[in-house]
């Protein structure tokens, strides 16, 4: 939900005179929502600002975002960072991979999700 949240916020800021750029890893969610400027890194969720313990990668990622911020000619400008997470794309298959889940583990996950929902609801309502 993080990518959708910042997309909705960016749209609101743009509509009220503030320029924005999103740095993110979930291309489809941001583009489906529709935003002014987006620097896309094809990295696992959690690495929107560059690779861990790699200052050069982080500085490069920020610099690309700043360039998009200052030079995008029109809304829906997406730039994809040329940096690669790994030479092997296998990591992309693991996220919410249903093929590895048995009916039992699905039931288990549903139970966990309900617990999480209850905790979140309690916190939201200040219980």
């Amino acid at each position, binding site marked *: *939900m*993080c*990518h*959708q*949240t910042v*997309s*909705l*916020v*960016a*749209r*609101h*800021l*743009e*509509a*009220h005179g*503030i*320029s*924005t*750029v999103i*740095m*993110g*890893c*979930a*291309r*489809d969610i941001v583009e*489906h*929502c*529709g935003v*002014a400027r987006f620097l896309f890194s*094809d990295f*696992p*969720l*959690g690495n*929107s*600002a*560059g690779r*861990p313990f790699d200052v050069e990668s*982080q500085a490069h990622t*920020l*610099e690309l*975002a*700043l360039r998009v*911020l*200052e030079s995008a000619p029109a*809304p*829906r400008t997406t730039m994809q960072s040329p940096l690669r997470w790994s030479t092997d*794309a*296998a*990591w*992309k*298959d*693991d996220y*919410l991979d249903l093929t590895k889940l048995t009916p039992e583990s699905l039931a288990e*996950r*549903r139970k966990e*999700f309900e617990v*999480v*929902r209850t905790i979140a609801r309690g*916190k*939201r309502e200040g219980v």
Partner: protein
Amino acid sequence: MTEDGVPIPYMQRTRDYYLALGYSPYRWAHFTEVPFTPLRMPLARARVALITTAAPYQPEAGDQGPGAPYNAAAKFYQVYSVSSASLPDLRISHVGYDRRHTSAKDINTYFPLARLKEAVAAGRIGALGPRVHGAPTNRSQRVTIDTDAPELLRRCQEDAVDAVVLVPS
């Protein structure tokens, strides 16, 4: 197998996953019109703010360390702001980042404040706003649009920023 160079289809994966768990399909936000504000001055003279979805560390709220399991108790439901002068301790155990391929050990992968300060020091950016703002991640698009986004706008206007870098975790 995801083809090399093709981004993960997150909307489809999420839809399939929650369907398999027995929930109805989530409707992702979609708009045909996209608002756009050109940057009004050179970036070297602009004041820039950072908006994050990371959460302030709460010692009483359980494991929020690197690789911690999803921790709903660490979630927040109101916009928050912290000074940008220091480097705040912000964590991401409350969101669905890729726990298998990411440790979240380095805050700079999801919160680029240190890199932004370097950009200011180098003269690339005019200045940072006095505060960093936190956006609550919410399944309710209505709450984000009607409550959180206007509050974040108000705080950005208060800080007189010209541009905002938004970083989802």
